[in-house]
């Protein structure tokens, strides 16, 4: 059973550029959430996608956008990169349903994409 796959694993970009990160969820999961983890910090919630729509959003500027495809995979796009966007970006997949009706509490994380902005 495949877990969560993220690509690329590492990325170096220049300030002002745009970047796209990709995530394939665990089999059976229909929801993808993105987190930003700065060095030495805990992950911060960026947004969540379900049924190809953004369902929840954390305190991140509009430069951060995303997309979910019919196969549940997702992309995170960041425009006009800043030095402060350098971080580990984690994708977590889950099942949106109600606990006890097929859903569990589980979030499965990928190994992340390390983005360095220079």
């Amino acid at each position: 059973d495949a877990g969560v796959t993220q690509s690329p694993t590492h990325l170096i970009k220049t300030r002002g550029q745009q970047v796209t990160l990709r995530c394939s969820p665990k089999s059976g999961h229909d929801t993808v959430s993105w987190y930003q983890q700065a060095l030495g910090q805990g992950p911060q919630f960026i947004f969540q996608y379900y049924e190809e729509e953004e369902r929840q959003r954390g305190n991140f500027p509009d430069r951060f956008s995303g997309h979910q495809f019919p196969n549940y995979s997702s992309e995170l796009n960041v425009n006009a990169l800043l030095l402060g966007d350098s971080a580990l970006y984690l994708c977590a997949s889950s099942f949106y349903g109600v606990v006890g009706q097929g859903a569990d509490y589980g979030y499965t994380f990928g190994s992340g994409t390390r983005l360095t902005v220079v």
Partner: protein
Amino acid sequence: AQTVTQSQPEMSVQEAETVTLSCTYDTSESDYYLFWYKQPPSRQMILVIRQEAYKQQNATENRFSVNFQKAAKSFSLKISDSQLGDAAMYFCAYRGGTQGGSEKLVFGKGTKLTVNP
């Protein structure tokens, strides 16, 4: 807004000994879930243990157990018989609501655990 606080940036333990990692949280919700995640150098977040707030019994998973004090909003992790493979960053996380995977996780800043041989 919910917050999670881990007051120990670093902890160390001798192999085979016991260590306790602390976590406190703040919420006005009555239904929620608490988690401990382990993040080794491979970077993947691995679920260690979880606790449902409505359950009075503390969760246990092999060598890992929690001390959940709902009134005090405290959720500590005890690792017994520590092993070298336990060395990692440990994050305490909170999730509100009763839905499945539709709620975001709120993480603490983490505790770096070192296990000495």
